[in-house]
């Protein structure tokens, strides 16, 4: 890489920002237990756009803390294998909001790890193809499925270049109040929408990654010039996955 010399100091700055964010988050946790943030009473609007920066250099091989945290937060770990289903098939079929992906450069052997989830596109293909309007983009940039309108056609799953969506194939016995789930609908990462609406600053995956000491996931508001997210994006080189599709993703990756 030509920019190697330049990247190093920037990287350090990013890391320290990330560390600062982590401390800020920790403080936030304390604050929250003291004074619970108010639930949202005004409609979400486009003064914010939520997004993330994922620094793949900090994403550890073999670590799946973000996936586990997401599963717990969103009740995905409560899914039960249907009777008689093969383990392998079930592993492929059960709903998953974050996948750990590893890419390898066959020439150099360099392996890159990254969590892949809904990229919360500005121009989401899933929304374009949805025949019922169930797939929609909320004013603050979060791409969601309104499962009261979803008919389970799965066009969105075909349209998504990131394989971010899952279909619920069978009756779901156990579910959390904050994440309803049932047979016949499609779902995907909602950027912890219940946290957004209850004034909690982070996502489950970003918290878990920070708790592991990796700080590979930085969540924030892409429209706030003072947010640690925007500051980090200004400083370090990042990319959109499949930027050729011009979807203007809300999730950006560094080091890919």
């Amino acid at each position, binding site marked *: 890489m030509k920019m190697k010399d330049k990247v190093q100091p920037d990287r350090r700055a990013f890391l320290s920002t990330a560390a600062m964010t982590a401390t800020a988050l920790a403080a936030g946790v304390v604050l929250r237990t003291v004074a619970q943030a108010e*639930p*949202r*009473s005004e409609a979400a609007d486009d003064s914010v756009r939520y997004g993330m920066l994922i620094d793949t250099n900090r994403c550890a091989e073999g670590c799946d803390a973000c996936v586990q945290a997401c599963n717990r937060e969103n*009740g995905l770990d409560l899914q039960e294998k249907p009777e008689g289903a093969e383990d392998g098939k079930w592993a492929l079929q059960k709903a998953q909001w974050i996948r750990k992906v590893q890419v390898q450069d066959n020439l150099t052997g360099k392996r890159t790890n990254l969590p892949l989830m809904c990229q919360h596109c500005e121009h989401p293909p899933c929304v374009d193809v949805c025949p019922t309007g169930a797939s929609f983009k*909320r004013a603050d940039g979060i791409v969601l499925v309104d499962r*009261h309108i979803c008919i389970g056609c799965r066009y969105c799953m075909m349209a998504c270049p990131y394989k971010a969506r899952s279909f619920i194939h069978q009756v779901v016995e156990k579910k959390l109040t904050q994440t*309803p789930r*049932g047979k016949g609908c499609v779902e995907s990462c909602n950027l912890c929408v219940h946290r957004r*609406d209850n004034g909690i600053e982070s996502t489950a995956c970003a918290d878990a990654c920070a708790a592991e000491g990796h700080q590979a996931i930085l969540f924030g508001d892409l429209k706030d010039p003072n947010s640690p997210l925007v500051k980090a994006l200004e400083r370090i080189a990042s990319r959109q996955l499949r930027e050729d599709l011009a979807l203007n993703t809300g999730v950006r990756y560094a080091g890919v």
Partner: protein
Amino acid sequence: MANALVRGCLISASLAWALSAQAAGGSFVVPGSKAASEKSCVEPTAFMRRNHMEVIEHQRDETVHSGIRATKHSLAGCIQCHVSRDSNGTPIPVDRPDQFCGACHRYMAVRPDCFGCHATVPTSAALPRQPQGETN
């Protein structure tokens, strides 16, 4: 039109049931629920009997599309207040045929599909992964 007629009939029937149950000395609020110790529902009782579905479904769109959570009309809220608990304090699913939503719906032969997805007892994401106790 036909729908309205059916709805009218159903509602009259449910009112009749409500009146008979009240004549028998009770409302549909189940003992052991938070509602049993409250004076009133989120809206006047008579209004709720007739219109609770409209209330929740309106809220559904507000919450899912606009993110509005500061509301007394959330489905989670209905369940939180109306859920009954057994002698161990374990919440009993509200859609069971002898519980608040389930009993009236069974009598009325309405089968809302909500509980195919929505939890029938209050649960939290925090450890341990059990239904919440008596808190709140």
